[in-house]
């Protein structure tokens, strides 16, 4: 797939911004400055960045508990995200959601979700509306390998295929669901194989290669447009952190962990090498992107810290829409 320097650097920048956001959030949480739960996306950035590089403003995404990456890649403002993580009033939900339920409808971000696999069936609802309203747009459902063992995954894929809904299913197979290794929770090696059961295409790709991801999403969209039906994309990856920051369970093989975190496998240095080899960008560009991401996050944290908490009067706002 050919890419311009701008396109490539944009994907790279998105990956770096996601990494910087989640490493910052993780450090703040470890330091006791952030309440609640933080599920870092570090290591999986190529998926969100690759997928969203193929999406337009009208396209929608439904996300998970590990959602910061999807949300940033779809264009969310990291200041408002960080304010939400702190429970502050300028956060995306005015402090009501925290990390796990961030949304920005103006950007097609239908929301992160605290219930595993719940977003899959909601994504079909979004896709149904897009189809009904005759919009040239798709909805991407992100979810993990663990989610693919829940009923909503199976109900969702079946309905999308049967109704020919414009949903693209992106399974982020990071090989673990909390402390449970994927291999111990399913008999098959490739989650993409499940697509066949519902009459859709299943592809397994390298989830640490944003170009492979981008390509798979473009192909899925083209296939759908040609009347070729839906696609389940299984993007194989690895989460760098524990399930959530502060989780102390030990279940990863240390050698595998080291291998996946090495420069060779880590999606960010990997992509740097690709960009350099293609002559699209070099060390100075990478340093510049990283510096700007650091500055962006420092500003986001400063903004969030200086922001006010919501007043107690807002406690029961938004339970219902007035009228």
């Amino acid at each position, binding site marked *: 797939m050919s890419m311009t320097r701008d396109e490539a650097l944009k994907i790279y920048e998105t990956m770096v911004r996601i990494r910087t956001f989640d490493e910052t959030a993780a450090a703040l949480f470890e330091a006791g400055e952030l309440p*609640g739960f933080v599920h870092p996306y570090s290591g999986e950035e190529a998926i969100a960045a690759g997928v969203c590089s193929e999406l337009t403003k009208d396209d929608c995404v439904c996300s998970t508990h590990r959602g910061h990456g999807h949300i940033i890649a779809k264009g969310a403002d990291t200041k408002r995200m960080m304010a939400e993580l702190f429970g502050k009033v300028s956060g995306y939900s005015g402090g*009501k959601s925290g990390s796990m*339920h961030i949304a920005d409808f103006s950007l097609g971000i239908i929301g992160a979700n605290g219930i595993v696999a719940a977003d899959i069936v909601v994504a079909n609802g979004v896709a149904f509306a897009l189809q009904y309203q005759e919009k040239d747009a798709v909805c991407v459902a992100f979810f993990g390998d663990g989610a693919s063992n829940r009923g909503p995954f199976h109900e969702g894929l079946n309905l999308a295929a049967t109704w020919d809904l414009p949903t693209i299913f992106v399974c982020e197979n990071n090989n673990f*669901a*909390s402390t449970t290794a994927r291999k111990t929770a399913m008999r098959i090696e490739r989650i993409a194989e499940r697509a066949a059961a519902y009459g859709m295409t299943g592809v397994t790709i390298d989830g640490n290669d944003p170009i492979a991801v981008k390509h798979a999403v473009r192909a899925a969209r083209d296939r759908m447009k040609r009347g070729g039906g839906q696609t389940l994309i299984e993007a194989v990856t690895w989460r760098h952190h524990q399930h959530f920051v502060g989780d102390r369970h030990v279940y990863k093989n240390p050698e595998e962990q080291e291998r996946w975190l090495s420069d060779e496998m880590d999606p960010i240095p990997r992509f740097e090498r690709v960009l350099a080899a293609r002559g699209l960008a070099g060390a100075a560009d990478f340093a510049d992107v990283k510096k700007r991401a650091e500055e962006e996050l420092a500003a986001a944290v400063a903004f969030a810290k200086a922001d006010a908490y919501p007043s*107690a009067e807002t*406690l029961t706002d938004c339970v219902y829409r007035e009228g």
Partner: protein
Amino acid sequence: MTFDEALNDALLVEMRRDSSVVVIGEDVELKQAALFKEFGARRVRNTPISEAQIIGLAVGSAAMGLRPVTCMSFSDFLCCCFDEIVNQAAKMSYMLGGQTHLPLVVRCSTGAGIRAAAQHSQSLESVFAQFPGLKVAVPSTPEKAKGLLAQAIRDDNPVIFFEHKLLGRMEGEVPAGEYTLPFGRADVVREGDGVTLVAWGRMVPICLDAAARLSAQGTEAEVIDVMTLTPFDEETVLASVRKTGRCVVAHEAVLHGGFGGEVAARVAEKAFASLKGPVKRVGAPFSPVPFSPPLEDAWIPGADCVVEAIQELL
């Protein structure tokens, strides 16, 4: 021993005692490491993320004579297996004319206070208390955690067992070895003649705190820990209200439609003549649990709310 350790101890003792007890749930291999070490994968079953299947497994295997204890993590996830709990587990004995019974336990962590936001903080005990066929236990101390969980395992019926997140590290004396507490028998945890406070779970220590504050002002509150919502020990509550003439029911779940209404109605129906004022209820505002720390703190009904409700009665 802490509340959490007491729960683990109950499981350990019951599993040693009865080989039909099995533990089923997501991540139990690591989260119940001591049990896994002793009983292995045959009796401590790590499942995929499949809530409907976990409870389905409990229903089917309980019908065949096992005593499954499911670990469902956050109580909010019970919504993902509502059918299996409500339409299957609760009704099977009755629908089948008593051909089978289901000795299964659904363990879950409940309540707000850890900034876990709307989908990981609910108190759902009132919901499950409404279904004939289910029993609902809500321990308030380490000792009760052990005694009630052991009883839940021995009980021949489905028991939904709510463990408040903020009680996990509570320390207390816990009897060693086999120990059960009967269902349907409330505990008078503090005696008094000024007002009856009815509570369960984490609301019990909160009511004790409120009672201590009131004592300094000259009112002695009687605090009743109901321990199980279903079966509900009405007699202990009524006897207390006949003595004190005043009643406040407190729970963390939203006030609207909460089990406090059931308690209040029974007191009004059966001890009306003894009442010197209306039965008061304390519960959360009618909203999901907010994330932001000051909002969540404002949402959770605390000792101040209990004291205020009592003062309105005096």
